[in-house]
């Protein structure tokens, strides 16, 4: 297939011990589109994300999978190397990217903290460094696995605004895995619901309140 700046999966299956954790997922994300993936624990969200990130070479599975070449991942934990400075973490594995790294840090509001150790930063700041590390690579696809799950509510709101702004500037395709319906509605253009390894619902976010109610319904939460 020709290179494509978004994602296409056809009948994607991933099995652990003969149990199909992903059971035929058909997914398309256009370039620059922000998609949120909702699902309860154990629904297969993280498995799908790991498959897209290419982090599951040893897992049994089948199906077609097209992802762009340049993929960045933001994990739930910031996953910064504690022995590398903030700037070194941002440009990890890149050559001669110091200047871009600085700009990237400035974009997430951490200019001047280049020389700090990750342990000196707050949880929210660490996650912003992780965002900078992802964006400095100018990804065509940004995969985020509950990136704000470990943050307090206020920091989380600030991070939502930051992520929105950054995505509008850089326009990567985004797949945000979350279990927070409000987060999905606040951030995404389109929301998918995964259950038992299948996509069971799809919503385009036009009327947030109605979408929210329908999503909660799809997730089996009655309000």
């Amino acid at each position, binding site marked *: 297939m020709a290179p494509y700046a978004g994602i296409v999966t056809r009948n994607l299956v991933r099995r652990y011990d003969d149990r199909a954790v992903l059971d035929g997922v058909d997914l398309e994300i256009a370039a620059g589109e922000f998609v949120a993936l909702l699902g309860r624990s154990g629904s297969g969200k993280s498995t799908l994300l790991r498959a897209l990130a290419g982090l599951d070479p040893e897992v049994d599975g089948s199906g077609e999978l097209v992802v762009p070449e340049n993929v*960045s991942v933001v994990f739930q934990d910031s996953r910064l190397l504690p022995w590398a400075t903030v700037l070194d973490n941002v440009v990890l594995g890149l050559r001669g990217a110091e200047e871009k790294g600085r700009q990237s840090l400035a974009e997430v509001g951490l200019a001047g903290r280049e020389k700090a150790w990750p342990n000196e930063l707050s949880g929210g700041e660490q996650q912003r460094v992780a965002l900078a590390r992802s964006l400095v690579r100018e990804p065509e696809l940004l995969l985020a696995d509950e990136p704000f799950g470990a943050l307090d509510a206020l920091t989380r709101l600030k991070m939502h605004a930051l992520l929105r702004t950054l995505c509008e500037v850089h326009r990567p395709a985004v797949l945000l895995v979350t279990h927070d319906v409000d987060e999905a509605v606040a951030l995404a253009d389109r929301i998918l619901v995964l259950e038992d390894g299948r996509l069971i619902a799809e919503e385009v976010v036009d009327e947030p309140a109605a979408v929210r109610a329908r999503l909660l319904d799809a997730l089996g939460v009655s309000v």
Partner: protein
Amino acid sequence: MTVTTLPGLRPVTRTAPVVRRRRLGPGRPIKFGAAIGPVVLLAVWSIGSATGWIDPRVLSAPWTVVTTAGELISDGRLQSNLWTSSQRALVGLGLGIVLGVVLALISGLSRLGEAILDGPIQIKRAIPSLALLPLLILWLGIGESMKVVTILLGVFVPIYIHTHNGLRTIDSRYVELAQTVGLSQREFIRRVVLPGALPGFLLGLRFAVTGAWLSLVVVEQINATSGIGYMMELARTYGQTDIIIVGLVLYGILGLLSDGVVRLIQRRALTWRRTLAS
């Protein structure tokens, strides 16, 4: 607090006197507390020697030790013996560190290396290196090489154990990160594996330094013709307790100094950790 109610009046609150609780902890720290024990010991030693209660053949007086040290320094014996001892310890330590690190890297970075090396080294660990002395003397004689090899054998094991452990316990999440940012094998080792194993290596280094001095003390008392241990052995045959004490103090100073140096290296190399501790 007691509440007394009188007819027709609002309750009156009276505060009972505060009960002062007995403190259960050891109490406030004493100023210069760490110095008190050694000073008392020195005082008892001085008084004992001055009153003749301590026989100088058993233990020389502190001032005799000081003058003897002065004499040993002025005729150059102390310096030359100290130099020989330090050289042995440093050469053994240096070779042991190199051997320990190389083995740890081979066994930490490759499964085959681990399969071949780890078992024998664990067996070696169970045998105290000083127990190997008879064999080493048969193989290497009683010269310098036997001494250096004995020190080396005592040094490389802790270096290997802790470095290997450091390599093997690097968080798998960092491995995943390295994959997602597309690090090459070389970069992965340089950026993630080696710095991740550094705390383990430095811990091993502290044990190694202590081990090096221990081995040194033992090998210097076997047919040596120079070194602090030799100086002390010679003093034993003439019953010169003052020289023996000078040797002991020297060993003590060397041990303290080298531990201080390792801790300094640790602090410098692990600044990122200090931020956690402070």
